[in-house]
């Protein structure tokens, strides 16, 4: 039986196609819109001072966010040191040693942890670090972000280790390597570019987290010494400046948003470059 394509069906097809096309353009342009918006509003504050100077006391204009930029770096470093090794080793166990049922249970719990609201993780870090030490600190902020990195670190590690072909593992074991030796000398090196970029994306994901830092790292108008004192971070700085009544601070907040977003984008792009050029890409 021949089917005549009716005019109404042609119209619906054309309409839906156009609509999905427009939505695609929207999706792609959102990023550039945000970038441009941040730049337009913060451009005047985005100068050398912004990267080198401390914030000015209330009421004065100018100044910068050097302490928050360095502070974000320190907190993210701590988060990596805390979150990546735990997540990585758990991922190794999950991928290589756990039985089917047990793996299912671990994965389920890890996914639940990934779904825990970041503010709740902030409270946990508050209870674990701030309360016993009696003050806010970079360590507390790093702990909060580190906990947030764990689930993705686990799943990234699991996925990239599983993607290493069986024949490479067999090659190592056929030479008399034990399972553990095989994992650490062949499997992990084969997955290293994927693992590295996965961890970088993970870091980029928590770099913009604000809620868990509000009552852990707190913030600081000055340079923070070491890792045990309250510390300024870009997201918290943006939050504080954005809710302040002063126009100049709003501009600085826009500029900080631009810097933070650029940082995240740079980490993202370099992570993807690493994975595209790494040894694991050659075996796909």
């Amino acid at each position: 039986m021949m089917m005549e394509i009716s005019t109404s069906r042609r119209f619906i097809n054309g309409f839906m196609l156009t609509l999905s096309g427009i939505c695609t353009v929207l999706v792609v342009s959102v990023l550039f819109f945000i970038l441009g918006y941040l730049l337009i509003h913060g451009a005047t504050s985005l100068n050398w001072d912004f990267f080198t100077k401390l914030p000015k006391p209330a009421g004065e204009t100018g100044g910068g966010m050097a302490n928050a930029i360095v502070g974000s770096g320190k907190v993210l470093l701590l988060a990596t040191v805390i979150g990546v090794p735990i997540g990585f080793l758990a991922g190794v166990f999950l991928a290589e040693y756990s039985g089917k049922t047990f793996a299912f249970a671990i994965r389920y719990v890890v996914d639940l942890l990934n779904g825990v609201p970041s503010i709740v993780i902030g409270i946990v870090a508050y209870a674990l670090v701030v309360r016993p030490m009696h003050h806010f600190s970079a360590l507390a902020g790093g702990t909060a972000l580190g906990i947030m990195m764990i689930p993705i670190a686990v799943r990234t590690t699991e996925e990239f280790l599983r993607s290493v072909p069986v024949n490479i593992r067999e090659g190592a074991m056929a030479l008399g390597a034990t399972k553990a030796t095989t994992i650490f000398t062949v499997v992990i090196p084969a997955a290293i570019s994927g693992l590295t970029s996965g961890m970088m994306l993970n870091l980029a994901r928590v770099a913009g987290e604000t809620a868990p830092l509000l009552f852990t790292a707190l913030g600081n108008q000055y340079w923070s010494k070491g890792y045990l004192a309250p510390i300024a971070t870009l997201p918290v700085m943006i939050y504080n400046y954005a809710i302040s009544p002063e126009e100049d601070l709003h501009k600085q907040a826009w500029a900080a948003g631009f810097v933070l977003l650029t940082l995240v984008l740079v980490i993202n792009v370099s992570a993807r470059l690493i994975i595209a050029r790494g040894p694991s890409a050659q075996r796909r």
Partner: protein
Amino acid sequence: MASPQQQQTFKDPVTEANPKPDVAKAGASMKLTARNINFFYGQFQALHDISLDIPSNKVTAFIGPSGCGKSTFLRTMNRMNETLRNTRVEGDLKLDGENLFDMDVTDVRRRVGMVFQKSNPFPKTIFDNVAYGLRVNGIRKSSILSEAVERSLKRAALWSEVKDKLNKPASALSGGQQQRLCIARALAVEPEVLLLDEPCSALDPIATLKIEELLFQIKDITTIVIVTHNMQQAARLADFTGFFLMGKLIEINDTKRIFQNPGMKETEDYVTGRFG
């Protein structure tokens, strides 16, 4: 070449099941002896009562249609199947008279090397690939390592092609070179037996010829067992050939006998292409 007595021991797989005086007599030159090997993937029995001897410093080939169990049996001989979950092996397997299943598994695999169907170089340099087996066996001294790497690459007929790029990644080599690298890697630990699981199935005729030549060369230092789909390859290379069908060893004998005057109807049908 094997003496007529040795050939007798291969003759009848049914009586092979009960070790008899002939086997004991020939035992001196037998590297591996398998008796009543059964193998199971879960409920599925992949090998039925396999008994055979692998003579020292000879090439033994296993032929047979896909799924006949020849690779499974090969992987039993270095206990590689143990890496698969839910598998079980029964029977008696001896390496130089010593029970293979009682030995330390890493020791077994060092003594019984393996080359796989698909070349599997590690994502490391050429040098590190060949040195890998020595390193995991505790050898660290660089003079010993570089000597062994050179020797192994020469034996695998790859040295002249890679001697100037030992620090290049192994993935830069061609398919045939990668497979020869894998052979060099296996030879570096000086295995007493080298198992090859269809090593040429992914290679072109020239690369295949190179590998066959090198296998012929290394026969004097190691015992070779090769699984192949290619009957001409078995005929060219092997001193002895075993024919597997549906998880059973139909017969194993002098290669000439298998191809020209086989003892069993199934073997004749297979080698003459009348199979199925």
